[in-house]
């Protein structure tokens, strides 16, 4: 029988081994440290990152690119674990750049450690406006909501002609920022925002919230949500008998939206900086390769992760696989080919990328298609 002593002794031995792994010799291959969720509530996003990292590295290797590898440490998007991972990474000489974490809660708790150790923390999903203010080693390629929301407002108000809007948003730093920016932009364009409703992550029952929205009498609904929430909301909107058109932020763009939403998402309007039918060659090459390797279409999170690993490879090629090299390189590197942006160049003062491209999309016959300019019937 397994008694406590042998169990603890075994655990301790494993523990010492795992703690001692950090900080090995410097002549080993250059390694990217990734801190993100592999288990826990956000695990699906970590899995998407991995898929794209593997694809990007495989392609680079086949093309004779530099020897770069990555280690993925599971943080569960929990700040307690992301700070421990940060200490592990900054004290591991092989690691020359860090990617992640997924949520701002986890990323920003670790930022002071990366900043003090002068290791770049590249938060590819961190749209919290204060993330890059953590220090000059915090960089992000996340789509700036300050850029996306006016675009969405233009789509909804001017292009689709929705003048009385109800906004449903996720009650997180991302959703709140998005909502505030959208409301301001929509009002500037002359629209009325007649209702705003916040919901918690994981919430599934929107019926009563939608009654409130119905009684505010909007001509259109706007969702600041991820795809799973958006699908559930759209179904309940239609079940309640609301016929208003729905416009949603780019993060709903995912094949999963169609799967989970079914009929209810037909006619939904969204925009995406990544669209597989986009004729741009870099997009087509990525979609084809991803489809071949994984047998499914990539979504926006895949695209972001793919871009990021390619950026790292470009930085290593043009500068060096060292912490200082990356830090200098990010400020200098120009026009890195990108699926999301077309080409990426960082603004050295905000440490973010400007100029995301937005394609206007709609769902038609259970597929995302480019919006053909037809205004919805507001009857």
């Amino acid at each position: 029988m397994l008694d406590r002593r042998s169990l603890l002794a075994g655990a301790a031995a494993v523990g010492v081994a795992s703690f001692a792994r950090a900080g090995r010799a410097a002549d080993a291959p250059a390694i990217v440290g990734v801190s993100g969720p592999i288990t826990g509530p956000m695990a699906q996003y970590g899995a998407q990152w991995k898929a794209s990292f593997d694809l990007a590295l495989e392609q680079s290797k086949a093309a004779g690119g530099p020897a770069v590898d990555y280690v993925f440490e599971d943080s569960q998007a929990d700040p307690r674990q992301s700070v421990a991972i940060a200490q592990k990474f900054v004290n591991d000489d092989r690691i020359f750049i860090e990617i992640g974490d997924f949520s701002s809660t986890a990323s920003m708790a670790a930022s002071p450690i990366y900043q003090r150790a002068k290791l770049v923390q590249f938060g590819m999903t961190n749209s919290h406006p204060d993330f890059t203010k953590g220090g000059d080693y915090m960089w992000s390629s996340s789509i700036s909501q300050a850029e996306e929301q006016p675009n969405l407002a233009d789509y909804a108000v001017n292009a689709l002609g929705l003048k009385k809007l109800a906004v449903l948003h996720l009650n997180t730093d991302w959703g709140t920022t998005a909502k505030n920016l959208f409301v301001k932009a929509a009002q500037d364009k002359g629209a009325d925002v007649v209702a705003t409703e916040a919901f918690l992550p994981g919430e599934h029952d929107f019926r009563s919230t939608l009654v409130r929205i119905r009684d505010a009498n909007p001509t259109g609904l706007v969702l600041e949500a991820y795809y799973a929430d958006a699908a559930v909301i759209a179904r309940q909107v239609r079940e309640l008998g609301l016929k208003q058109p729905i416009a949603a932020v780019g993060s709903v763009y995912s094949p999963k939206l169609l799967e989970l939403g079914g009929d209810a998402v037909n006619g939904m309007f969204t925009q995406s900086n990544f669209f597989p039918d986009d004729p741009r060659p870099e997009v087509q090459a990525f979609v084809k390769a991803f489809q071949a390797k994984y047998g499914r279409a990539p979504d926006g999170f895949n695209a972001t992760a793919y871009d990021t690993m390619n950026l790292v490879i470009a930085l290593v090629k043009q500068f060096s696989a060292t912490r200082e090299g990356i830090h200098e390189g990010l400020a200098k590197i120009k026009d890195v080919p990108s699926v999301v942006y077309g080409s990426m160049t960082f603004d050295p003062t905000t440490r973010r990328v400007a100029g995301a491209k937005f394609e206007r999309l709609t769902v038609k016959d259970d597929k995302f298609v480019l919006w053909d300019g037809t205004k919805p019937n507001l009857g």
Partner: protein
Amino acid sequence: MMLGPWLDYTVNGLIIGNIYALLAVGLALIFGVANLINFAHGSVYTVGAYIGWASITFLHTPLPITLLLVIVGCGLLGIAIERVGLRALHGRSRIAPLLATIGISLVLDQLVQLICSPDPRALPNQLGDRRFQIGGGTIGTLDILIAGIGIGSAALLYLFLRFTKLGWAVRATAQDQDAARQMGVDTDRVNMTVFAIASALGGVGGVLVGMYYNDIDPNMSFDATLKGVVAMMIGGLGNVPGAIGGGLLLGLTESYGIALFGSSYRNLFAFALLILILVAAPNGLFQRRRETPPEPLTGTFVARSRPVRLPPWLVAGAVVVAALLPLTNQPYLLQTLTNGLLSALLALSLTLVAGTVGQISLGHAALLAIGGYASGLLALDLGWPVDLGVPAAGLITAALGTLLVYPALRMRGHYVSIATLGIGQIVALVILNWTGLTRGAMGLTGLPPPEIGGFDLTSVRSVYWLVLALVVGIALLQARLLSSHLGRAWRAIREDDVAARSYGVDANRYKAMAFAFGGFGAGVGGAITAHVYSYIDYQTFSATLSILALTMVILGGLGNIVGAILGAVVLTALPEMFRFAADYRMLAYGLVLLLLIRYRPQGLLGTV
């Protein structure tokens, strides 16, 4: 006022209430017999949803067959949980099975995630969707089926319990397990039957709700358990028909809450209702007469054992080694230990409240949140230096924590646990919604690092020393208190509340003192965490942390000071040690936890 929307809100409340009721019926059944809040119920519900998904996707089964497979699958799972996970813990203490269900839930969720991937899945509605107009909205056939199964199963169970021989055996076991056994009732078989029925119901609930939303994912368990427990509590612990009423009332409260104040307040209303019911009608709304709650009156809630007496030189030696550790250059190890010691501040507080005074708190992380926000806001908004803000945050947490827990002070056993769970949720939701003070979902950014006398502590080493010193200081103080008359009064309350009162011990006052002292330590811990992270939001100190803190305390041995510190460090280090296991990391953690509960239910160092 127009009637129209209120009819819609009522219908919507009843529809979501249905789902809560279905969850609550299973929980109530298990509680009625095993006197146990089954925290794995939500996980069984998730497993049910996935069995349904798999049989529809791969076997293309029609609805009746799908439901049958789910009933069989989840029934067997329930039997396995009872047989493998819980039976061995029988008669040891009430707290060991509770903890075991938490461990089982962790393992089940991880297994689902590993087997089915963490992606959300669509679960197509096989019933077809005919919709009927009611008021301004519609209800579908699935809504009616969910209601039918909830009410039907409650009615069937009621008849089963009342009129069948096995049902009598179940009720006899619920009333007095030992007496039932003496009368020849096979109580093991009864327990197994009950777990099978309740789990099958939970699984059916999972499938139907999954179809309802056309969306299932491996993380739907926790919310399901939480709402189910609240609904059961409103109906009365272990009251099967009451669970239906509790679920519907909870749904209605949420729906009206949304109607009046907006959707971000829905859970605030749910938990406020819970606290109200606990204070005003602790036996639930549907108890016919005032029965004594089915709770141990004496200290059987906490396992009895002889504590391991550690020689003082060993403890002193361990402290010296810990203090010298930063001299080796191991920052990752130090950061992990710092996290462990910060958790130890929470665990020390909880071991006092839960172990020494016997008030098992399931919302303790709220104290960290209050401390973190208090110190953070003092620094950001009032410009207080951190070394002044941190102790002030400790005092604020002590005061506010005691005030918040005040309604729970006159409760016992499971009632305290559920009340504190609710209070913890309320604190998090107030932080999220009180945007003017707390900045809401944006959290507090740019918090200054910890400092002493104007010197910033930024290195891992200095923070580690600071936290170590605090842990040692608070532990010594707590040990001193426990050996004073205060400690004796606390233990007297734990052992026998009524006897303590009749000896003139003002139990509420002493409980409040324990919460105040514990609140101070936890508040300081939360404050330092906030300054180390530089950023906190309402999710930094989540409900899962409260449950983790309880596992730390139970693992160390309830009331055991050294045990609490050991438990905190071990449970913080374990997930780090299992990093090599990658995707299987949390599964390994859950299994180790279960083994520890199985072979050492009184904790590593024993209960004091």
